[in-house]
């Protein structure tokens, strides 16, 4: 069997080549992995209906300077697999009695079986200067066969990306699921503690930040020491749209990997709350250019501008439907903020969606396959995150008064949401949560952080 090598890009940050492992030692395993029958590849739980139990020990460092990376890979991969809750992840602190394997042949299947594992990951890391080579296999503990085997190489700068990639590929292969381990969150933060160079005192600079979906690798996007608000990812994840106050609030599109800044609204009036359409070609936003806050849409370059609402009330927070044909938004046209929907072409067909809320704001339309709108509902002193099923009008509540909870943003695939909460010590922080309200994770801890957006 000849070596079958494919090349593929890990992400815009790190490119790595991926090759199927076909060493002599694991030939049988790889042949197994290349069987056309998918049934044999999927590891199931011991009992029908129970999720398979996965173990992810530390990867093996084949060179001494790779030991830190090896540890990181094991932990991050465990966290990534745990995030989607498709598998029961056996806690890593229970692996102590199991002898560490140096090669695939040494994997102690009996010991893993005793621990109740259905699947175990075996991975190695080799480091040469700033390059790493990562090999990983997923074994079915009962059959002792490798059902997934890959090799990755690239820079050592961001080892977590290898774990994220492995996680996404395991979810894809084992569950047909598009995982989110390589997605990113963007938000607004005042963590720099810099005061605005303004004539009015005590105003904090707020900058746009982004980081990995799990909160690692947080970076600042904007550097202007101004007020920046409400980031929105372009569907290709290469750009962020947001509002910068210079001091006139205007919509900017930052191509974050190219260092290019575009200004489609060109300083005409006040412009806020930009959101990319699902095809990435348009931006909906709120503007006061005609004397009242209304919803507008335009092409990303600012052409084809059209006004979609026309009321005396405030219309704000647009969000596109998955097909792009509709826009949901907030309006207080009946007195209190409620969520409405309209056609994105011309603003026709307006219909109110929230009927039992005292106030509802920041609608965020889920991506396929769900057709749901998450929003912040006034539930007392603060807000809670709720989800409206558009077809039935059914409402589900995800948070229950622990702090004030605002700013919901769907993950691609609609299985998770990001939102902000004051539950952790009073400051506003970004959290993620499953669509069933389980699996809460805190993403930010420094300063106040608000209005998250989740990339594809």
């Amino acid at each position, binding site marked *: 069997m000849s070596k079958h090598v494919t090349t593929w890009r890990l992400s815009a940050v790190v490119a790595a080549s991926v090759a199927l492992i076909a060493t002599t030692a694991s030939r049988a395993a790889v042949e197994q992995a290349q069987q056309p029958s998918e049934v044999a590849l999927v590891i199931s739980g011991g009992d029908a209906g129970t999720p398979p139990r996965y173990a992810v020990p530390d990867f093996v460092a084949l060179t001494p300077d790779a030991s830190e990376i090896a540890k990181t890979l094991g932990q991050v991969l465990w966290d990534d697999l745990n995030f989607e809750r498709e598998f029961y992840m056996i806690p890593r602190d229970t692996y102590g009695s199991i002898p560490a394997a140096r090669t695939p042949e040494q994997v102690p299947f009996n010991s893993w079986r005793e621990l109740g594992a259905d699947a175990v990951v075996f991975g190695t890391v080799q480091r040469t200067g700033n390059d790493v080579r990562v090999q990983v296999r997923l074994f079915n503990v009962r059959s002792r066969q490798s059902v997934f085997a890959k090799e990755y190489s690239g820079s050592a700068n961001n080892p977590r990306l290898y774990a994220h990639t492995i996680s996404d590929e395991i979810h894809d292969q084992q569950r047909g699921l598009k995982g989110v381990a390589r997605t990113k969150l963007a938000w607004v933060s005042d963590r720099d503690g810099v005061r605005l160079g303004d*004539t*009015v*005192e*005590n*105003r*904090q600079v*707020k900058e746009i930040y982004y980081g990995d979906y799990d909160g690692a690798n947080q970076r600042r996007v904007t550097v202007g020491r101004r*007020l920046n*608000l*409400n980031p929105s990812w372009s569907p290709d994840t290469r750009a962020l749209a947001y509002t910068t*106050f210079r*001091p*006139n*609030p205007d919509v900017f599109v930052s191509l974050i990997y190219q260092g290019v800044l575009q200004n489609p609204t060109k300083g005409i009036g*006040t412009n*806020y*709350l930009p959101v990319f359409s699902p095809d990435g070609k348009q931006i909906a936003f*709120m503007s*006061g250019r005609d*004397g*009242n*806050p209304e919803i507008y849409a335009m092409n990303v370059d600012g052409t084809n501008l059209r006004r979609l609402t026309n009321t005396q009330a*405030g*219309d*704000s*927070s647009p969000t596109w439907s998955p097909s792009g044909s509709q826009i949901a938004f*907030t309006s*207080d046209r009946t007195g*209190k*903020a409620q969520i409405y929907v309209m056609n994105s072409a011309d603003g026709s067909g307006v219909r109110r969606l929230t009927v039992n809320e005292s*106030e509802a*704001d*920041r609608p965020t339309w889920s991506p396929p396959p769900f057709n749901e709108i998450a929003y*912040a509902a006034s539930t007392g002193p603060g*807000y809670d995150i709720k989800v409206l099923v558009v077809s039935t009008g059914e409402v589900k509540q995800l948070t229950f008064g622990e702090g004030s909870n*605002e*700013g919901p943003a769907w993950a691609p695939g609609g299985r998770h949401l990001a939102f902000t909460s004051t539950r952790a010590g009073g400051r506003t922080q970004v959290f993620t949560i499953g669509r069933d309200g389980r699996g809460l994770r805190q993403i930010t801890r420094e300063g106040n952080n*608000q*209005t998250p957006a989740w990339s594809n």
Partner: protein
Amino acid sequence: MKEMRNTTIVVAVTLALAVTAACGKKKVATGPQPPPAEEAPVVTPNPPPPTERVEDRTPVAQPLADESITNKSLDDLNRDSPLKPVFFPLDSAELDETGRAIAQANAGVLKKYSAWGITIEGHCDERGTAEYNLALGERRAVAVKTYLSSLGVSPDRIRTVSYGKEFPFDMGHSEDAWAKNRRGHFVITSK
């Protein structure tokens, strides 16, 4: 300190009104004017004595500026601003009677200092979401601008911006704090 600031404002406004009133009736002599003293008496109980008519003098086109104000930097001006904030009721962008009175006084100052350009900032209290408050703040700022325009201040001099609940003036979480944070705030941006 606060009291002194208030006194200065009353002086400025009174002067503005007095001069405006005088304008309607009589031409006022031009020429170098002594800068009005900061501590000038606040009230003029009697109408000023009739001014002697002087021939061939150009009428004053606009109310005279207070040099103690015009000489200030923008930063200093805004720190101790003659333009007072207009406050709003909860979840409302409508000026009430008090708000209109403050806006009227501000309009008087703006007519006196006709070179000034201003930005009216719409601010909200922390109740309501960040997004909703951007719209509400926008409506507050526009409401103040519209009212000033109706009083004769050119809309070309006025920009508006909404800061929503991003920049509270009072960091507290009480009714008092919230009341202070629901405002149309005036910033002098050019002079």
